[in-house]
């Protein structure tokens, strides 16, 4: 807009001062209509924080070694992005936070592994709850930057990448493809120019994808691909078909042969293949056939020409769609590991296996250290594990916060707790802030199995949690440590109850003991689950063709309950009326009762733009009107990834879409959260991150500040703190603290140069417990909520040229302290810790650490003053004492008064020592230059030095060679004790104050006497000889800070 010619710009810069006087006037006229209500800049430096947990981590899809550097290891998470370790797996850091977080495969360029990394997105172990990917990415700078490779936008899942070690521009990509629909994007793709152009070189059909691609590194013309025919629906899974097979090419993919020689034929399921790195003729294949005599592990010793069936143990055949990875030891072709429920290892070339050592179950990938096969890394449903002894014992990597929440809720404790259930990792609750940060030890287990919804009883210290399919619903009495199972059960005459894998629960806003659950019926309990009443007819479509899960799985029956369908999925009791309850089902019904369940209206026909039977993932009953509600729908289980969200204000008679073009066309929606104050402020949880609107859905902006585009499964708005709390499926709990500034945003404010947002009075919290951090060196520790005062303002433009400063003043305009203001365009948040500046300390040989303490300000009103160029903006803020304080106001005033006295005393001493030092310097000068004055100046110097040695430390260091404390150190310790304490001044401190003041009085007296006697003589010598006196700053000047 104002890009300018370079030559003239410089002149303009020189006239900067002039320009800022004029610019605001002119800009106001011309920009009024230009500000949009969307975009990254809306959020400025408002940032999300991550609190994990990482202690149970989350599902890993793929592990990748560096070919030559054993310290480097990559982990591709099922829902949490790509992580890199530079320290042999001790710690990991995320390197893929701007892109889809569901990862299929990570592959390093064999020639240039430090720079070139390929990432295929979309996890490939196709359980019911998988996330989706959106293509192929390449980094040419070790993961700092990523480029999307065109042509793979619709790949959904990329399983395998093979690179020619002699010519690394030749790359083969195996696309497994869409899980829930046909897709012609499946197949093996080849590039010979590093990814610019691609050819599909093997394609079998729209329902058959690529499971693995292998290349013979000794002869890169030789390729293998395993093809898999599979399909998932919302109500079932089918693995297997005539099209599944192993293919081989000997001409770099020009032609392919389907391998059939002594291999099983007919209907086959998933096939995993692996080549021994030390002998590329040896190929292992694990084949799903559904028949005992052919199921499991096969081996070829002649590059796939002939095969032998070796093993069909449970570990080799269990859930092939979930576990088909084979890894061969880099040095020994007879050491073979296969992923599985526990993982299996063979040391006799695959004939016999034993389980891997104890670790989290469900092992998806294994890699050996490149140099030392005793070291094994394992990717599981619960993170990355390391073994140092060839797989006998395993330890977990503690800093991968990949937890996969299905659902979260919050309570109103201080700090509030977050509750939620995880894929294969039970149910948990933990604090949103904890001393030293939210660490593993802060989380509490409240359920087994797969965890889903976890709800706190509104008034009692009781937690409800559940495991898959409501097989158990627990009511946990936290104080008494007692658990009761309370799930609804069929009674005489009831049909079989159909609970979703992720069965809905809700507590009432009106009746604390009321608890709802949904099967195909809505169940209500008024006694915390002890007894249940069905208060609805079957609210689903009850489509019998979608209820036969016993046959689910295909060749290997897989009736885990995960595919239970035609069930209620969401229950929303109106926060305004307990008789209004909204229900949504997984098969597309929206149902409403306005009389507490006596009668029900099916609103499905009234929906607009929603394909039939699209999963109703969440209904949010609004606080802004009894008839107002939001419903989000997602059709990903039919291959429809489009975002859908509707709003009604008339009890569902009419609906309107609140989705705009701003939202990624594949970001299907699982959740919406309304603001309780501003009806137009909404938060949308999508498969590809969080979106926010401030105008009721006309414009949406993706929130990306420390927020990866991870699948957001559930959002809560904590009412007291206004924190947006997100349960993500791959990056744990992510919080955006206090979103209230977003409530105020309007076109009018966005047009102002500077706008301060209103803030509620801030509490100076007095929490002062301990936070030992023993053993957390390699642990993830979540960020805490900032408890300082938050000064929030909007800048229309990023401040780059000229001065911009911020200070806190008292209401009389006296400076309290200065702060570093944010300069971002958009919202800026600056913290103030309620403190003034620390006192000026007397100079000494060592540091008095107590002197670093800065006193807190008293409660009251303060001014924030922002100076930007020649303009000044100010805002009043208010500060309160902690209501939980154990100190009375009178005691606190006494503490503040004594703090002030001691602060001044510390500075009085500092000034006195300064005067002494300056006088001594002068005396030394005279001693050196004026022999006549030597005697007087020496006397003065020595007298002052003797005094100085009693005032401050003059020897030793800051550690164990320290000298005994002198007056400065004793005084500073007392000052710090009193100033930093939240409680009343103790009797001991008062007594100590008397002692210190007395000592200081004595010292002052000594100083006076010296100056009266030796000082006078010295000064008269100076006068007589026309030597200028020591230059001593005024006290005010000396005490100036900064």
């Amino acid at each position: 807009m104002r890009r300018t010619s370079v030559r003239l710009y410089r002149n303009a810069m020189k006239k900067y001062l002039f320009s800022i006087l004029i610019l605001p006037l002119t800009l106001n006229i011309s920009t009024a209509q230009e500000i949009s209500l969307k975009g990254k800049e809306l959020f400025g430096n408002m940032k999300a924080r991550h609190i994990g947990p990482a202690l149970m981590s989350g599902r890993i899809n793929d592990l990748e070694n560096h070919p030559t550097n054993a310290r480097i290891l990559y982990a591709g998470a099922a829902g949490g992005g790509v992580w890199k370790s530079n320290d042999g797996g001790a710690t990991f850091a995320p390197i893929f936070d701007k892109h889809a977080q569901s990862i299929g495969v990570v592959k390093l360029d064999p020639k240039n592994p430090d720079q070139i990394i390929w990432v295929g997105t979309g996890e490939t172990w196709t359980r019911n709850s998988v996330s989706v990917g959106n293509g192929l990415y390449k980094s040419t700078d070790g993961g700092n930057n990523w480029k999307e490779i065109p042509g793979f936008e619709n790949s959904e899942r990329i399983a395998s990448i093979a690179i020619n070690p002699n010519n690394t521009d030749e790359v083969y990509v195996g696309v497994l493809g869409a899980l829930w629909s046909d897709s012609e994007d499946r197949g093996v793709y080849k590039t010979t120019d590093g990814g610019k152009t691609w050819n599909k070189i093997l394609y079998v059909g729209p329902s058959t994808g690529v499971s693995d691609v292998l290349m013979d590194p000794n002869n890169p013309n030789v390729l293998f691909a395993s093809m898999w025919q599979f399909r998932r629906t919302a109500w079932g899974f089918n693995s297997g078909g005539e099209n599944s097979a192993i293919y081989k090419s000997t001409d770099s993919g020009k032609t392919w042969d389907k391998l059939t020689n002594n291999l099983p034929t007919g209907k086959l399921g998933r096939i995993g293949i692996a080549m021994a790195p030390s002998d590329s003729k040896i190929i292992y294949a694990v084949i799903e056939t559904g028949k005992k005599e052919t199921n499991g592990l096969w081996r070829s010793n002649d590059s796939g020409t002939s095969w032998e069936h070796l093993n069909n143990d449970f570990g080799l055949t269990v859930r092939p769609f979930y576990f088909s990875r084979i890894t061969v030891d880099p040095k020994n072709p007879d050491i073979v590991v296969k992923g599985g429920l526990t993982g299996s290892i063979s040391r006799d070339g695959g004939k016999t296996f034993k389980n891997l050592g104890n670790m989290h179950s469900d092992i998806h990938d294994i890699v050996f250290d490149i140099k030392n096969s005793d070291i094994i890394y394992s990717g599981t449903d619960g993170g990355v594990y390391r073994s140092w002894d060839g797989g006998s014992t395993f330890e977990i990597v503690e800093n991968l916060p990949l937890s996969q929440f299905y659902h979260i809720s919050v309570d109103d404790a201080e700090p509030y707790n977050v509750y939620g259930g995880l894929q294969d990792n039970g149910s948990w609750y933990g604090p949103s802030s904890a001393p030293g940060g939210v660490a593993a030890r802060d989380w509490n287990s409240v359920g087994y199995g797969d965890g889903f919804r976890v709800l706190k009883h509104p008034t009692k210290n009781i937690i409800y949690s559940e495991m898959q399919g409501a097989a158990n619903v627990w009511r946990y009495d936290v104080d008494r440590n007692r658990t009761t199972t309370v799930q609804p059960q069929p009674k005489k005459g009831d049909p079989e109850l159909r609970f979703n894998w992720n069965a809905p629960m809700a507590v009432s806003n009106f009746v604390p003991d009321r608890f709802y659950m949904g099967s195909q019926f809505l169940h209500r309990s008024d006694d915390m689950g002890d007894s249940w009443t069905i208060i609805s007819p079957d609210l689903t479509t009850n489509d019998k063709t979608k209820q036969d899960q016993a046959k689910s799985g295909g060749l290997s029956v897989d009736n885990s309950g995960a595919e239970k369908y035609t069930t209620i999925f969401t229950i929303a009791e109106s926060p305004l009326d307990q008789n209004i309850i909204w229900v949504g089902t997984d098969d597309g019904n929206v149902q409403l009762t306005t009389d507490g369940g006596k009668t029900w209206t099916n609103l499905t026909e009234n929906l607009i733009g929603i394909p039939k039977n699209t999963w109703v993932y969440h209904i949010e009953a609004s606080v802004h009107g009894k008839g107002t509600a939001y419903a989000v729908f997602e059709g990903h289980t039919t291959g429809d990834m489009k975002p859908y969200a509707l709003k009604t204000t008339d009890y569902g008679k009419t609906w309107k879409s609140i989705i705009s073009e701003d939202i990624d066309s594949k970001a299907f929606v699982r959740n919406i959260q309304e603001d309780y104050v501003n009806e137009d402020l909404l938060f949308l949880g999508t498969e590809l991150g969080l979106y926010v609107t401030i105008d009721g859905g006309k414009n949406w902006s993706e929130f990306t500040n420390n927020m990866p585009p991870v699948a957001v499964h559930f959002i809560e708005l904590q009412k007291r703190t206004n924190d947006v709390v997100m349960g993500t499926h791959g990056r744990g709990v992510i919080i955006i603290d206090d979103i209230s500034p977003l409530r105020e945003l309007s076109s009018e404010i966005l047009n102002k140069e500077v706008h301060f947002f209103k803030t509620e009075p801030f509490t100076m919290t007095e929490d002062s417990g301990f936070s030992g951090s023993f053993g957390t060196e390699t642990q993830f520790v979540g960020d805490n909520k900032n408890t300082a005062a938050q000064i929030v303002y909007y800048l229309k433009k990023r401040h780059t040229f000229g001065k911009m400063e911020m200070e806190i003043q008292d209401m009389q305009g006296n400076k309290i302290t200065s702060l570093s203001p944010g300069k971002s365009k958009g919202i800026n948040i600056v913290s103030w810790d309620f403190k003034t500046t620390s006192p000026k300390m007397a100079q000494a040989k060592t540091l008095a650490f107590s002197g670093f303490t800065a006193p807190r300000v008293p409660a009251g009103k303060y001014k924030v003053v922002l100076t930007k160029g020649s303009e000044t903006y100010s805002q009043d803020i208010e500060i309160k004492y902690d209501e939980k304080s154990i100190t009375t106001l009178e005691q606190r005033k006494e503490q503040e008064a004594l703090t002030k006295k001691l602060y001044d005393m510390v500075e009085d001493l500092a000034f006195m020592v300064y005067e002494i030092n300056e006088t001594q310097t002068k005396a030394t000068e005279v001693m050196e230059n004026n022999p006549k004055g030597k005697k007087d100046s020496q006397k003065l110097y020595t007298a002052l030095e003797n005094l100085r040695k009693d005032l401050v430390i003059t020897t030793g260091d800051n550690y164990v060679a320290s000298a005994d404390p002198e007056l400065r150190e004793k005084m500073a310790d007392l000052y710090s004790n009193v100033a930093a304490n939240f409680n009343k001044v103790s009797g001991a401190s008062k007594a100590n104050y008397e002692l210190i003041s007395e000592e200081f009085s004595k010292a002052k007296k000594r100083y006076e006497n010296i100056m009266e006697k030796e000082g006078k003589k010295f000064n008269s010598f100076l006068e007589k000889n026309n030597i200028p006196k020591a230059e001593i700053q005024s006290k005010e000047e000396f005490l100036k800070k900064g």
Partner: protein
Amino acid sequence: MKIIKTLTIALLLTVIAPVTAQTADEIINNYFENTGGKAAWEKLEGVKMSATAQAQGMEIPVEIYQTKDGKQLIKINIQGQDITQLAFDGNTMWTTNFMTLAPEKSDAEATANMKKKTKDFPSPFLNYKDKGFTVELMGKETKEGTETYKIKLTQEPMMVGGVEEPNVSYYYFDTENYAPIVVESEIKQGNNKGQMNVTTMSDYQEVDGLYFPFSLSMAGQGIQLKEIVLNPEIDAAMFAFPATTTDTEKKE
């Protein structure tokens, strides 16, 4: 704002040149032109900066010296004591141990890496080709809420824990005025290894014809510059590792 409508701005800025395609070199050249001109930057022999660092209620005076031949000194004043936080005389890099307040030499690797930084004065972009550095325009990105050009700067590799590591940083130049406002570089060791170290820069002001950012924020820690002196008087002894002194003073 599609066109600039007012005479005032037209007078100030005179020519509006809507720039479309930009190369990294153009952006860097614009930066130097806008901040004083390449020739003036080339003439710069050294700087002395006086600043205040804000940390937990303390406003700590900081003095920084940098010279064209690679000398560096960062001195802070705490409780009236001058403490050399970092010094480098071109060969020896040293710091002050906070326990003993005595000078200690930095390890060989850090010193070798510091030697390589000699070329960074006054800006690594100044005649970067002669220095053997490469730059690449990565595209535009929103930083600090505003549109920027992202430029990748690759310098000589560093040694970290005995392993050679690439030395790459990313500079974000405001598209409106070509001033760098954010710099990111990868943290190479310690617990935050792999994360980005982010420095933001603002409050650019003129000092004898050259523009410097007077406000820096490094990993959330604010530093406000109060004064910059160009080509200051330099006492070479400041940078040198002091002869070891023993504490002979005894209390009487």
